[in-house]
């Protein structure tokens, strides 16, 4: 029950923050539109890049939003108070995962609708699968953001974790250089990064009309990392602090 109440509480906070909602919806759509005009007359490239971006934006945005939200819980003392209540730590973290996951579902649906209808994005597979992967990515961002916030003491530090955690994954996920053309050691690093699998799953949807086994496996890996990160985050969330 406390999980449900916590999820509702986080969604309520979000609802009161109209500007954040506007940004959550507007930023991905604006960036996709920008891509559309960048790759004018290069439809193939746009299809490839926009598809991956549909999965990347939710990851980056939710990582940032969550690490700041969690840090705010710490600095305002609400976290300390929560830890004296019957609330279970996993309920708090999964509450964030679910609440921001729902927000990401809306975000991804709007961004995908724009990409497919107005920007003529073309994928062999279904847009529903793209949204599913985008939402999983968003939850991955939430989970890693929660974990990262455990290691940040100030907002300054929390924001710095974005380039540390997200950028290497973006660089090595196969968007800039195909993974099979990377040096072996780079490929090995890329192999242990969850975003690699998210991007591969998206590429599968781009290339195949039906959901492939590879796509499901990749999605499973990402979901597994989500659970692992949330459990790790709840373990690093100490009730007693110095």
């Amino acid at each position: 029950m406390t999980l449900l109440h916590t999820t509702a509480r986080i969604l309520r906070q979000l609802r009161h923050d109209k500007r954040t909602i506007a940004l959550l919806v507007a930023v991905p759509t604006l960036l996709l539109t920008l891509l559309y005009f960048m790759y004018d007359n290069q439809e193939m490239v746009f299809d490839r890049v926009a598809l991956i971006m549909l999965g990347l934006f939710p990851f980056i945005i939710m990582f940032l939003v969550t690490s700041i939200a969690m840090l705010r819980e710490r600095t305002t003392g609400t976290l300390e108070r929560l830890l004296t209540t019957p609330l279970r730590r996993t309920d708090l973290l999964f509450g964030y995962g679910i609440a921001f996951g729902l927000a990401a579902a809306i975000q991804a649906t709007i961004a995908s609708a724009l990409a497919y209808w107005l920007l003529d994005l073309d994928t062999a597979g279904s847009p529903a699968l793209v949204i599913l992967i985008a939402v999983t990515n968003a939850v991955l961002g939430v989970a890693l953001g929660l974990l990262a916030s455990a290691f940040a003491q100030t907002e300054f530090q929390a924001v710095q974790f974005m380039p540390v955690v997200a950028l290497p994954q973006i660089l090595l996920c196969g968007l800039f250089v195909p993974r099979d053309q990377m040096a072996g050691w780079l490929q090995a690093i890329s192999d242990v990064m969850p975003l690699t699998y998210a991007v591969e799953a998206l590429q599968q949807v781009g290339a195949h009309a039906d959901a492939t086994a590879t796509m499901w496996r990749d999605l499973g890996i990402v979901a597994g990392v989500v659970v692992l990160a949330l459990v790790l985050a709840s373990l690093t969330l100490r009730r007693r602090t110095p």
Partner: protein
Amino acid sequence: MIEVKDLVVDRGKLRVLDGFTCSVPTGSITGLLGPSGSGKTTLMRAVVGVQLVRSGTVTVLGQPAGSAALRHKIGYLTQAPSVYADLTVRENARYFAALHGLDSAHADQVVVDVGLGGAATQLVGDLSGGQRSRASLACALVGKPEILVLDEPTVGQDPVLRDELWARFRQLAADGATVLVSSHVMDEANRCDRLLLIRRGELIADDTPAAVKASAGTEDLDQAFLTLIRRHGDALDQGAPQKGESR
């Protein structure tokens, strides 16, 4: 009942509590007084079970502080208001009530009880400082706690409201709650059943307000504390044996 025995707490490089021992009886209000930096907040954090302690024990209602069974029974008010600024007063109270398995109607009543009935639908972020700390207080009271730990609950409140809040603490104590309140205001110290005077992490007085005043030979509690602190300071300077060093 709260029992603290030989508690040692370090924060950073500082030893904040050094072999601290005290007890807080059930069904009464115990005031925790002392200069800032004396260890009041650290002691309260240890009681609610969020303070990392070096050694010693804190027992609350017969259980180690911070154990899961106690989390249903504790209300904790931190010094800085710890409520969600981007939620309304009512939403804050309802959330903390829900964590204790209590319904919205009860939460709404507590909001009225702390004098925020008229501001229930305001965002906490839009409230004044005094209102904000009352919103925080509402969230500490909302779980019907048996142990109420309040870190400076009435700072910035007007006298009428402060009076009402104390009447409420008194009622909770009469109903069997254990109330531990830290304060800077001597007028409030007079309302407590017992006082713990703490300085530099050491207990220098543990008695009723009347007895504290009597031992210092004055009718003014403010003056009494000054006297006791000076007496204690002199003892320190002369290298006399102190409490906590006999371990």
